[in-house]
């Protein structure tokens, strides 16, 4: 990919001790995720009999589909220089709304309207950040609280279960032996990757995140790009929420709101910069797979799950430290 060539060129141009440190850090930043995924894959293949089976691998993919969608959108946001904490709450709202609406509207309209509500939430976040100039972290923290509260109001604190048999289709049906949700994940990955690397829109996202003033002086509508990125984040949370509620047939306020942390972890572990202007979808895809393999490995090797979050946290810190050090060195 284009990013890879950048690294090798910089490595070659680099001269002197400091520059070679920066070259090494850049190499780490660019390729660490690839090496880690491969290594982990090999380790699990040799230590567990059940790891390298179609059932297990499809299972892993199916589990990461919702968090993957949220992570793709978060990749767009980090590239454009913003952040969205509220996608977890929007994800939950979608499930709750869909479960509540299903008896009245039927399965597909309920899922669609619920996902559109999440999209609307994303647009509102975008407008608040871009036009009211509220810091995106604070803004989405606040809207996240409001949306979570709204979910509680809708459910009145109860579990909302759906009994219609057709409701499971989106989350559980298969095409060619593969679940719909996995197809959605794959198509979304290809589409997002294409948009970022091959379209004007993608270029503008990178430019705005890399240097908003230079982007503005180049005629790019900086605010519009931010609104689009937030809108996408809402939509992704909506689709992810629809998939999960269709799989579990239950909507519950407060359950699943932490999906945003898993998504964020995947994005930064993949090597997308938290400082804007740098990143890619294939990185996030690898980040998702990496974190999923860790969880899967822990389960297969029967390690206490309490250690998982400690290790995940350490991995995120390492990834962000490498990003920050490579920026400073260059």
């Amino acid at each position, binding site marked *: 990919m284009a990013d890879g060539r950048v690294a090798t060129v910089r490595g070659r141009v680099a001269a002197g001790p400091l520059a070679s440190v920066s070259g090494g850090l850049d190499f780490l930043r660019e390729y660490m995720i690839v090496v880690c995924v491969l290594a982990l894959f090999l380790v699990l293949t040799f230590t567990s009999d059940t790891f390298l089976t179609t059932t297990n691998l499809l299972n892993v993919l199916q589990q990461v589909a919702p968090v993957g969608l949220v992570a793709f959108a978060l990749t767009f946001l980090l590239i454009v220089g913003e952040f969205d904490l509220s996608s977890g709450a929007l994800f939950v709202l979608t499930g709750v709304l869909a479960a509540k609406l299903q008896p009245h509207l039927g399965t597909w309209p309920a899922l669609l309207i619920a996902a559109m509500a999440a999209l609307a939430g994303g647009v509102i976040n975008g407008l608040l950040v871009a036009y009211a100039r509220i810091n995106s972290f604070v803004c989405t923290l606040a809207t996240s609280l409001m949306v979570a509260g709204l979910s509680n109001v809708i459910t009145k604190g109860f579990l909302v279960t759906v009994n219609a048999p057709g409701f499971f289709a989106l989350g559980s049906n298969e095409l060619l032996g593969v679940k719909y949700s996995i197809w959605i994940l794959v198509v979304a990955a290809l589409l997002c990757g294409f948009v970022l690397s091959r379209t004007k829109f993608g270029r503008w996202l990178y430019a705005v995140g890399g240097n908003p003033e*230079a982007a503005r002086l180049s*005629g790019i509508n900086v605010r519009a790009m931010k609104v689009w990125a937030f809108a996408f984040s809402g939509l992704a949370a909506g689709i992810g929420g629809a998939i999960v509620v269709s799989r579990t047939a239950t909507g519950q306020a407060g359950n699943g709101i932490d999906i945003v942390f898993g998504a964020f972890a995947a994005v930064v572990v993949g090597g997308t910069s938290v400082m804007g202007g740098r990143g890619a979808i294939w990185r996030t895809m690898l980040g998702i797979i990496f974190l999923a393999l860790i969880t899967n490995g822990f389960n297969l090797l029967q390690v206490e799950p309490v250690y998982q979050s400690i290790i995940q946290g350490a991995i995120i810190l390492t990834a962000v430290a490498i990003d920050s050090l490579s920026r400073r060195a260059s």
Partner: protein
Amino acid sequence: MKAGAACAVRGIHKRYGAAVALDGVSIDVAAGEIHALVGENGAGKSTLGKIVAGAVAPDAGEIVVDGERVTYRSPRDAIRYGIGLIEQEFALAPDLSVLDNVFLGVELGGRGLVDRARQRERFAELAERIGFRERSSVPVRTLRTADQQKVEILRALVRETRLIVMDEPTAALTRDEADRLLEITRELRDDGVTVIYVSHVLGDVLALADTVTVLKDGRHVKTASAREETTDSLVTAMLGRSLDVAFPERTPPPPDAPVVLSVRGLSRPPAFDDVSFEVRAGEIVGLAGLVGSGRTEIARAIFGADPAAGEVAIEGRELRGRSPRGSIRSGLALLPESRKDQGLVMVRPLSENVTMAHLGVVSRRGVLQRRREQRVVRDTLRSVDARHASQSQPVSSLSGGNQQKAALAKWLVRTPRLLLADEPTRGIDVGAKRAIYDLIRNLAADGLGVLLISSELGEVLGLSHRVIALRAGRVAGEYDGETVDEETVMRAVFGSG
């Protein structure tokens, strides 16, 4: 109050990248005097002031305070020798109160506790001395600029500062406020404080200073008693800026060349007010002026980067609802003052930077055509002769000169009607400077209008067909670039003679 500090610098050298800011400067500042540093833009006066105050480290040379050679590792070290700096941008904590700002880091009291009563007492004493009338409990950000500056002065006094460096202290003040500041400065001197006063307001300097040092191109020209100088004699001393680069031949635009840019009554107070001029096709018009004269702000307003009142027309069509986007469509291009902050996206590849403003040229229905883009980037970079290893290398890995060429190439993907070139050669080496001059000249020869802004008067005079002198945001004179001499323009921008 302790006696003022005497200070001397010996053989100070300082470079910023390829640019030499100070080249072996030595001066003596006597205890208890007001010593003014004057010079053209880029003469090195601010840099010298900052070196004395420890805010900038010299590459070579020594600083002597009261006969003792000193080395600073930080501005804190300078404070220990009793030297303080008041910069154009204040170093205050905006949300803290006046009192807390004044005593920040030197709080009165013992054992980690602050003795507010004692602080207020001391504050009242000092405030009385310099005529500061605001309450000590209000946050600093609520104060007017002039009062914030007084807080800076109070802060220096609390630290028993014996030498204060003031860098362009009147730049952000109204005339009345500036006069009051001059009074305060005199009172400080009378109390025994030494003042190094960096300014380009020659009238103030002559009214205030005991001694004046003139710098030019980072070199010492002369030091004399202020009583023996006039604005004329000072301007004369600043003249004759040595040109380190040869300029390409001027080809004058044809007499019937159409007007490309017409600016009528453009205003954005206080930066600039009622500015009108025209640029014809093939013509290079230079804007000459001191820092703060409104040069950059005018270019940004024309481009629609900042709002401003007045009319801007391109080839007779008025631009309405000015925005960078609309301006680019109408054929305007802005090569901004800072390529790093405003021109380029440093973390992105060279190719993306070149096509950034004209992605329509290399895409169809929003999808990029990579082959076409590579070709366009290759041809454009070749036309500006930007050396690069690969189109996909990050633009940050290029040298300053090649970055600047890339920033220019960005506007040549589609040929504009008018180029606003703001400091096109800042911080690049002599060879790259000449290359940029040639490029600008050739663009003009091809019929492009160019509005050239530069702090280097030699550059403006060497390239422009016509020169507009700006003083304090207004047009102070318009001259033929071929025939005008440096002295005439300098007198116009300094407002002397």
